């Protein structure tokens, strides 16, 4: 990666709507962990139940809860929400690529066909 003067470096918050560096406080981290623990408990409870009597809806709800937990850890604990946009592009790019490639792969092999 090339280097250049500080004046040329990407400004701290050029296209980042959230002010960089303002990480949550310790009590906010504990609150986020509490929410994650509650979501995990809901997930486990859901796995023993069938929402609306349908396994499909229950599975959908479990995937949504997992996605919320994933996003919360990435945004707040990994500071993706507060860091420079380039790291979001690197990580989310890899994530979206992985999801698209493997959804196409599983669809091709008929995993989603009943």
């Amino acid at each position: 990666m090339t280097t250049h003067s500080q004046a040329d470096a990407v400004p701290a918050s050029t296209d980042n709507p959230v002010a960089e560096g303002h990480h949550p406080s310790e009590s906010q981290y504990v609150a986020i962990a509490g929410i994650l623990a509650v979501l995990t408990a809901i997930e486990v409870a859901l796995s023993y139940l069938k929402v609306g009597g349908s396994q499909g809806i229950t599975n959908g709800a479990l995937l949504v809860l997992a996605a919320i937990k994933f996003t919360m850890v990435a945004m707040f604990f990994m500071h993706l929400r507060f860091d420079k946009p380039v790291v979001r592009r690197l990580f989310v790019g890899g994530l979206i690529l992985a999801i698209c490639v493997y959804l196409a792969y599983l669809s091709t092999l008929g995993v989603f066909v009943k």
Partner: protein
Amino acid sequence: MAMADVAAVPGGVATDHGPHHETNTGMSNEKVAMWAFLGSECLLFGALISTYLLYRGKSISGPTPHQIYDIPYTSVSSFVLLMSSLTMVLALAAIQRGDSRRLRVWLLATALLGATFISGQVYEFTSFIREGLTIKTNLFGSSFFVLTGFHGVHVTLGIVMLLSLWNLSLRGKLPQEKAEVVEIAGLYWHFVDVVWIVIFTVVYLIPTK
């Protein structure tokens, strides 16, 4: 962080929120490299999870997932790993405000929680093998052990990283100006946690037809 301390960071200049590096991105190359690595790890774990889904319910002999999974036990393991992300981020907050003692406490707590998770996984693997499920038994055994085993190896490497940082701090070689080293190790640790969030839901909680 004292401005003089930040300005002393090689390759970095002082800002209000830590060192601003003289690179195209304004971030250290090490941190960008870790994020790029984590992006590529999404593809690795995506392949392993996809393989598990592909072979799901296709085993012609047992044991099957619903015969051997112990959901309450795995839920506790998942909770332990989730809480290790909290202690990791508290370790980072400690070094960023120059509190080396708390940094070591939280690093050690994170490593211990990680070791608890790994111990739980070793116990789970042992009990599965005792019940007749090995990596060679059926498609479920092969895909399950490869996926969760790869994740376990990642957690173990993370524990080694954490204990190395704890040791460096103990010897006074991890000052406040090197907070980014803890941040980079933390990124890896949190990634291992988010991967487990997906594995726990897809492999354990969503039942096989």
